[in-house]
């Protein structure tokens, strides 16, 4: 089929809009507009084929679009900000699944007789889309399950996993090769389905060994995968917009993955396959019974009353307890008394890079109080009190001192340099990375046990009562 010139130009315009959207999304002032430009372009682009193609089944297609739209709107509206990473994973997964299905249909179309003998490169791109789309789908589902705690967030490794993984991968590649070499005989669709199943298996096995703390990197990587499958799908369908949009996402997603891995001081290979080498098994999920110093709200209120400089280290635990608003109130009270208060935001605070900024923005914490790690790390030694709320791994000195620890090499916030450290924790259980935090046992550290919201509420009252 040939695409009329006006439609090709419209696709080009949409592609330019996607570039502008990504450009906008990378700056704080332009981000929202960038996203809106992308959304409008995507909606308009999807309307184009209705005007130049003589599409069958239009009512059914419209119903399907309506169903998907309703699902997307529902998910996007109801998701809590704390669950954002798994939502992104899920949206990404269904996109990958859709790309795989589209390629499967196209394979059926081009191998079922009618028309010219398809070129090997088209078949390669089709097989690639089916395989990688399925990997992305299955991997994202496992990622979702890990983050939603439907399954353990710890690395899952069983004996022989690398072997099964290797066999599945080799099987998929061989099958892909057969499909390309031997297309015309009508078995295209069934080979495609087997290829998709192998892709699902590879996706599951790829993500199982990744530990909970590293899952965001996987989301980003799978996002790039889906982008590339969409690009390949664009080639298969001779659609420039899909090619450009998919490639943009594939390239920027890959780059973003490397940036994030860099912020965690890890290589992507180490994150994906580290557990297979036994590296991450060092962590343990058990609570320690070593002695620690703990105190109640009144004592901590007094500590805060004598402080001139307070730094807050917020973590995911804060968000889970929905305590951001209480924390902001506490900070407002302290600021009103002339105490200088800042939030120290670790690049991977929360469950995903930049996640904590979203969570605090939701609680209307002024943007100026949020300090990035490099900006604030020099100031910890001047801080009278550091209040660690629901964070753990990002202040764990093991990242500097214990080679072999799962987080070794990750840049951390230098909370240990402060005069006093107050840890608000629910229990002595270790953090997401599953390793003990030496900082808890330092003489300058005081623990304040309890649910973050309750504890902050008590602390707020104690501070106000002074």
């Amino acid at each position, binding site marked *: 089929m040939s695409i009329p010139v006006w439609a090709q130009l419209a696709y080009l315009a949409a592609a330019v809009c*996607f570039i502008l959207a*990504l*450009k906008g*999304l*990378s700056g*704080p002032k332009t*981000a929202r507009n960038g*996203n809106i430009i992308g959304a409008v372009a995507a909606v308009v*682009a*999807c309307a*184009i*084929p209705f005007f130049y*193609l003589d*599409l*069958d*089944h239009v009512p059914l*297609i419209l119903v*399907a*679009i309506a169903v*998907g*739209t309703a*699902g*997307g*709107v529902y998910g*996007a509206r109801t*998701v809590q900000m704390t669950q954002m990473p798994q939502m*992104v994973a899920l*949206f*990404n997964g*269904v*996109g990958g699944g*859709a*790309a795989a299905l*589209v390629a*499967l*249909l196209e394979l059926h179309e081009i191998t079922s007789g009618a028309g010219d003998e398809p070129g090997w490169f088209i078949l390669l791109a089709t097989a690639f889309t089916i395989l990688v789309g399925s990997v992305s789908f299955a991997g994202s589902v496992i990622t979702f399950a890990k983050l939603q705690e439907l399954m353990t967030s710890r690395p899952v490794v069983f004996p022989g996993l690398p072997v099964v993984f290797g066999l599945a991968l080799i099987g998929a590649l061989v099958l892909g090769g057969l499909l390309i070499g031997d297309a015309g005989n009508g078995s295209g669709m069934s080979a495609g389905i087997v290829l998709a199943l192998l892709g699902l298996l590879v996706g599951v096995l790829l993500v199982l060994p990744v530990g909970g703390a590293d899952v965001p990197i996987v*989301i980003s990587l799978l*996002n790039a995968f889906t*982008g590339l499958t*969409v*690009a390949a799908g664009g080639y298969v*369908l001779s*659609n420039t917009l*899909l*090619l450009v949009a998919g*490639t*943009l*996402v594939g*390239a920027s997603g890959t780059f973003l993955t490397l*940036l994030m891995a860099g912020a965690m001081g890890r290589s992507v290979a180490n994150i994906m396959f580290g557990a297979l080498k036994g590296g991450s098994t060092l962590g343990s999920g058990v609570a320690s019974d070593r002695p620690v110093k703990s105190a109640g709200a009144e004592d901590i209120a007094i500590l805060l009353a004598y402080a001139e400089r307070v730094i807050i280290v917020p973590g995911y635990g804060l968000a889970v307890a929905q305590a951001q608003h209480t924390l902001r109130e506490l900070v*407002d*009270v302290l600021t*009103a008394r002339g105490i200088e208060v800042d939030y120290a935001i670790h*690049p991977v605070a929360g469950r*995903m890079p930049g*996640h904590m900024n*979203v969570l605090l923005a939701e609680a*209307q914490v*002024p943007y100026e109080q949020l300090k*990035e790690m490099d900006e604030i790390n020099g100031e910890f030694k001047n801080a009278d009190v550091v209040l660690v709320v629901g964070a753990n791994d990002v202040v764990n000195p093991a990242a500097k001192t214990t080679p072999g620890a799962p987080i070794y090499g990750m840049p951390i916030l230098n909370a240990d340099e402060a005069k006093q450290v107050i840890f608000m924790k629910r229990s002595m259980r270790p953090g997401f990375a599953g390793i003990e935090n030496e900082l808890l046992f330092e003489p300058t550290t005081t623990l304040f046990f309890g649910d973050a919201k309750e504890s902050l509420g008590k602390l707020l009252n104690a501070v106000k009562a002074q």
Partner: protein
Amino acid sequence: MDEGVVWLTIFILSVFVGIEVISKVSSTLHTPLMSGANAIHGVILLGAIIVTGSTDNGLALSIGLVAIVLAAVNMVGGFLVTDRMLQMFVRKKPAVRAAGDGADS
């Protein structure tokens, strides 16, 4: 120019554009950027519509409709959830009066 080379050219140039446009992103925006990029590949919906609309086989039609539903979830949900996140960043608060009640007591 050979058609395959044209496609390859578009692909390679898009790779560089994709990297270039986000190269200066701050870590603050990593999450919305990932989510927004995620929404953009939801445009596979376009492909799903084209393929589904030109099929004549019952099984293929149902697979196509599933693909449309999935792609629409990806695209619509992706853009909306990104907007929800960014909405919070944009809201510039005129320095809130520190929750007046009891602050001075």
